[in-house]
């Protein structure tokens, strides 16, 4: 352990996996035809890893050569990545084009008949229905497919370093990789699914993996509880999502995208779709999305989910799974798009989406102010950024439903683009935080062997790491910049669009949009504060504990993903913006095309609309200047004497010490801070409700069943026993009585027969 470099020869088993895509191409396959393999290859790999791990546990070759299954997991993900790159290439640069979408003919999974009541009698003629499974691709699913396969691969790579070098994971890593690959199946499947039912199915698979991986350290109380909390909270949403599916099915007689989206205004049998029905159905689906994407009021599980290993937090709880809710809301666009066959009258639904997004964004950012756990800050940041996207989607749905389709498409595209930027940046931030935690833990392990109270995730134990972990600090800097929305970097290109269009919706369309508009603008500044705070607490200033002085970057397999993602985060946003990603994702354009640097910059910084210009610049001011400066005043500072950081981050450390310092201990002890520490009491409230309603009611039910329902049965039983005891009294034991009884009985029989025959 320690100073070793990557053993590149270990990667040899991956080669055949990577060759799958080129081989299929050579065989003359279309890329889309191979899409199902993206799911199937991991599907075959994951049981193999689990079973092999169970059998070869402890075996040296298994441990060192195959990294307890990690190499196979990486291989499967590599083949998924290569196939998805093939598909992306085909559609973006190659010969294939979306007409509106591209569907591989669904395979019929369940077939059944349905009968309808037409008001006077039952109609049996036109009832045949089936639920199939196929592949659906459009720009957004293409983007998500790339995000999912790319990040799954990189994070699996990262795990080889992060998981396998930690002795606590020894002999259980096969479980990690098996479940990791199973998760990948869920995510890839959800993105590719061509109907709502299969979307739901894979959605639930992801929920299962989230449960399993949060509870990876199953022996820890907190991990087991967090896993349960995550599963149950999302389950609440999922149940409503399922009800939403039932309603959609009832309306359209199908759950397939191609059938529903073909004409969402006509339901089964050509009936006109009632906007109230559809409103309820979409609302139910939205509750599911709220649960999965950890939005208010079902947000309580995400911070606790950080109990899982850090790669899991990076992949599932930041970069991919939590985006499922956004994807689902994006799928609602055709329902509301009155420009093409949408159903009018769904503005209320759009408002709900925007408000939920606005509230969550603000709340999560506020809670992030007081977190000291580096992963918790990132968790709340994730919630907040996802909420941005919800707000943007809400605004987009509103525009589309009111017929403003240019603005609508634009903000929908911006939201999806933000999803991309956020996934890349947040995946990297979590990996970087994992790198920090890993090295701090490692250093601590090196120094004190028996002190178990030390928390390697607590930023109060860090500080000054900029000089010790150059790659990590650079990565984290660019990640934070992207999340904050520093001009020209990553998230800026999408966040601007969301905030501006939300304000536009308020100004021109709907006064009720004022709330979300103000909230997201305020959140932009808050994001600037808490992300800067996190970075400064970790990397700037003098070391805050002796452990932090002994940290150094040395674990193999960790650096490569960070470097790759730093490049993507720093440049990807700008490049894609130049290519018109927003229009492409929003559905306005069906191909990526170069816009020209000047045009793009002008569009972002000097829009024609004066109001937009004002909003854009105030966002930049809040997020990029005021927020970070406030954070610097509290947490900034030079490194310890005689230590120098890499110039790429050194300037930032030095800059942070220039704004003076401010003592916030009084504010830190205020009631508001306490409330934020307690996560605004939501967890307490839910716990109190469950403890005072569900649990007593369950105990009462058990008691009722045992004592009342079964009690009645037992009463019947004991009554019949006591009845037979009293009947027994007439047997006196005296022979004479028996004879008398025999005689009397005989006579009565005779009398009876006589009576009957007469």
């Amino acid at each position: 352990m320690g100073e070793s470099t990557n053993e590149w020869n270990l990667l040899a088993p991956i080669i055949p996996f990577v060759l799958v895509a080129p081989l299929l191409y050579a065989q003359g396959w279309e890329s889309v035809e191979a899409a199902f393999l993206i799911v199937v290859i991991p599907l075959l790999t994951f049981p193999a890893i689990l079973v092999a791990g169970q059998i070869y546990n402890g075996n040296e070759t298994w441990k060192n050569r195959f990294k307890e299954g990690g190499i196979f997991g990486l291989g499967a993900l590599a083949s998924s990545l290569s196939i998805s790159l093939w598909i992306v290439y085909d559609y973006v640069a190659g010969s294939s084009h979306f007409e509106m979408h591209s569907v591989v003919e669904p395979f019929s999974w369940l077939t059944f008949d349905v009968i309808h009541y037409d008001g006077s009698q039952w109609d049996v003629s036109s009832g045949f229905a089936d639920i199939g499974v196929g592949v659906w691709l459009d720009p957004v699913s293409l983007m998500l497919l790339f995000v999912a396969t790319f990040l799954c691969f990189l994070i699996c790579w990262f795990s080889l370093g992060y998981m396998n070098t930690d002795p606590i994971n020894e002999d259980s890593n096969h479980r990690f990789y098996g479940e990791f690959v199973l998760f990948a199946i869920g995510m890839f499947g959800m993105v590719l699914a061509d109907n709502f039912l299969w979307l739901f199915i894979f959605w639930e698979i992801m929920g299962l993996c989230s449960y399993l991986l949060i509870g990876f350290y199953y022996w820890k109380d907190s991990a087991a509880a967090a896993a349960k909390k995550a599963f149950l909270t999302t389950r609440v949403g999922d149940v409503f999502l399922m009800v939403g599916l039932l309603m959609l099915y009832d309306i359209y007689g199908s759950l397939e995208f191609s059938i529903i989206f073909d004409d969402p205004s006509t339901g089964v049998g050509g009936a006109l779709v009632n906007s109230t029905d559809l409103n309820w159905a979409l609302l139910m689906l939205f509750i599911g999305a709220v649960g999965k994407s950890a939005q208010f009021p079902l947000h309580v599980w995400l911070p606790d989910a950080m109990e899982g290993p850090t790669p899991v937090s990076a992949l599932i709880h930041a970069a991919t799974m939590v985006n499922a809710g956004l994807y689902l809301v994006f799928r609602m666009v055709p329902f509301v798009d009155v420009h093409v066959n949408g159903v009018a009258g769904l503005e209320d639904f759009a408002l709900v989406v925007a408000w939920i997004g606005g509230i969550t964004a603000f709340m999560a950012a506020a809670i992030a102010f007081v977190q000291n756990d580096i992963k918790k800050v990132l968790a709340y940041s994730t919630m907040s950024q996802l909420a941005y996207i919800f707000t943007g989607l809400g605004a987009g749905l509103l525009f589309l439903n009111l017929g403003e389709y240019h603005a609508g498409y634009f903000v929908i595209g911006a939201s999806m683009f933000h999803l991309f930027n956020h996934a890349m940046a947040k995946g990297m931030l979590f990996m970087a935080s994992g790198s920090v935690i890993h090295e701090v833990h490692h250093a601590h392990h090196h120094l004190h062997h028996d002190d178990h109270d030390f928390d390697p995730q607590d930023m109060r134990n860090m500080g000054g790491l900029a000089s010790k972990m150059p790659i990590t600090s650079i990565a984290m800097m660019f990640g934070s910049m992207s999340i904050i929305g520093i001009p020209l970097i990553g998230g800026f290109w999408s966040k601007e669009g969301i905030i501006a269009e939300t304000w536009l919706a308020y100004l021109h369309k709907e006064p009720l949009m004022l709330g979300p508009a103000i909230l997201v603008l305020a959140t932009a500044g808050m994001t600037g504060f808490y992300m800067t705070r996190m970075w400064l607490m970790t990397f700037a200033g003098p070391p805050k504990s002796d452990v932090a002085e002994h940290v150094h970057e040395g674990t193999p397999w960790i650096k490569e993903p960070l470097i790759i993602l730093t490049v993507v985060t720093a440049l990807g946003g700008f490049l894609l913006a130049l290519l018109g990603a927003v229009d492409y994702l929003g559905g306005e354009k069906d191909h990526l095309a170069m816009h020209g640097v000047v045009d793009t910059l002008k569009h972002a910084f000097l829009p024609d609309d004066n109001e937009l210009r004002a909003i854009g610049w105030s966002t930049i001011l809040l997020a990029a200047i005021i927020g970070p400066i406030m954070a610097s005043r509290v947490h900034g500072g030079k490194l310890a004497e005689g230590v120098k950081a890499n110039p790429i981050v050194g300037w930032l450390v030095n800059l942070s010490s220039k704004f003076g310092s401010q003592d916030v201990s009084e504010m830190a002890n205020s009631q508001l801070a306490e409330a934020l520490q307690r996560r605004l009491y939501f967890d307490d409230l839910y716990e109190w409700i469950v403890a005072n309603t569900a649990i007593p009611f369950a105990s009462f039910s058990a008691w009722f069943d045992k004592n009342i329902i079964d009690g009645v049965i037992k009463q019947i039983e004991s009554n019949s026993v006591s009845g037979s005891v009293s009947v027994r009294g007439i047997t006196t034991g005296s022979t004479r009585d028996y004879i008398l009884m025999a005689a009397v009985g005989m006579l009565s029989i005779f009398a009876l027969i006589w009576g009957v025959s007469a």
Partner: protein
Amino acid sequence: MGIAMAVAVIATMLFLGQIGNIDWTNITQGGYVLQNEAVELIPSIGVSWKVGADALSFPMIWLTAVLIPISMLVEWDAKRGHLFHPLLLVMEGALLGVFVVLDLFVFYVFWELTLIPMFLLILMWGGDDRRYASMKFFIYTFAASVIMLVGILVMYFHTDPISGMGSLTGHHFDLVAMTAQENLIPSEGLRHLVWLMLLIGFATKMPSVPVHTWLPDAHVQAPTAGSMLLAGVMLKMGAYGFLRVAVTVFPESTIEFIPLLIVLGMASLVYGAWVCMGQTNLKRMVAYSSVSHMGLIFLGIATMQPLGIAGALFMMFAHGIISPLLFAVAGAFKHHYHTLEIGSMRGIAHHSPWLAAHMMLGWMASLGLPLLAGFVAEVAIMIAFWMTYGWLVLLPALTLIITAVYYLSSMQRTIFESNDPEKGILPDTMHGEEPRDITWHENAGMLILGAMTVLFGIMPFIFWDMMSDWSSGFTFETLIDAMHSQGWKP
């Protein structure tokens, strides 16, 4: 032991071998296959040996044939195996009899015959309280089926004579002829009464709230193989009989009593789930979860949609694979940790990884996770339920949350949470014994069950197609007319 196993396996193989010879077009169109020429058993009162299988009974037969060898495998080391395994064979014969005969007299004989081996299994291999449990099981279900017998006899006395059958009484027990006879019981009041009598017999077997209390007692005391068969196949007899006799012969009464079905189904489902949550005994909890899941079958039938009925059929089948897995896991806890108290141990996954893995799979399948067998049934029933009853579906849907709560809590408090990566907290009942993982034969049995759960979750159409065809045919040919005549609408 070995011989019994061999017989069971050979029987299963023979049966599976026959599948290739079946004319599937017939089975999926609501007809019977493998139907023989009726052989008269007691000509004077019209009893004949008439067997046949259709898509309603075929999955059940399949289930019985597959589950018996698996349950033998799981309890391969049973004490007095030379008695135990033959009893399971008797059980197999009786169960198969119930599912294949088409003559109500013989049906009733087999129906009661299943009680005897199960009674003996509980009485001779049961836990500490086995006497009480076996007696309760026997008398409770016997009393209910006697009421059912009265109903059957009333039906019998309304049959039209068939030449050569029932020379003495002029009646017969032939179910197919009864179904074909129009308006078997002309008087509406009497027909409803007979329907209710049948319902009492079948609902007790299913079991449905409020006549379910024999089940937890029987399960807790029964040996593992007994529990597996009890939950896997015997409970399905109730649902099977209900569909085969009560619904098929009296569709009008069924429609008349749909509110009752919904009440019973909802009560079993919702109330059963709440009771589950309040249990501290693992096996008792799993037993109540069976009650809860069986409630969905009534709800599926009550939708009067082909989709819902097919969902109910698939529920019978899926629950027949999943619940044996659950009981095998619970039995393994009893076997290796000598207790079933939830919360008396922690972190068992460290000592018994295979057991923990099987528990995870079984528990997840039972709470309706997609791509495991139970999900398709639940979704089908819910879709149909929404189509017919609208918002009422929230009740069963929200119950899914309760289901998740009790399953996850029970897992958390047995296999997780020891707060020590090196060892779990063992129950007091271990008395210092070294904890072990499950034995090879338990593992093999559970692996087969788990594999089937996954197989039928990913490829439900193996059985779904025939079930769906059956319920469509049944709805179009039988229910629609009754719905029109009763003026029933959603």
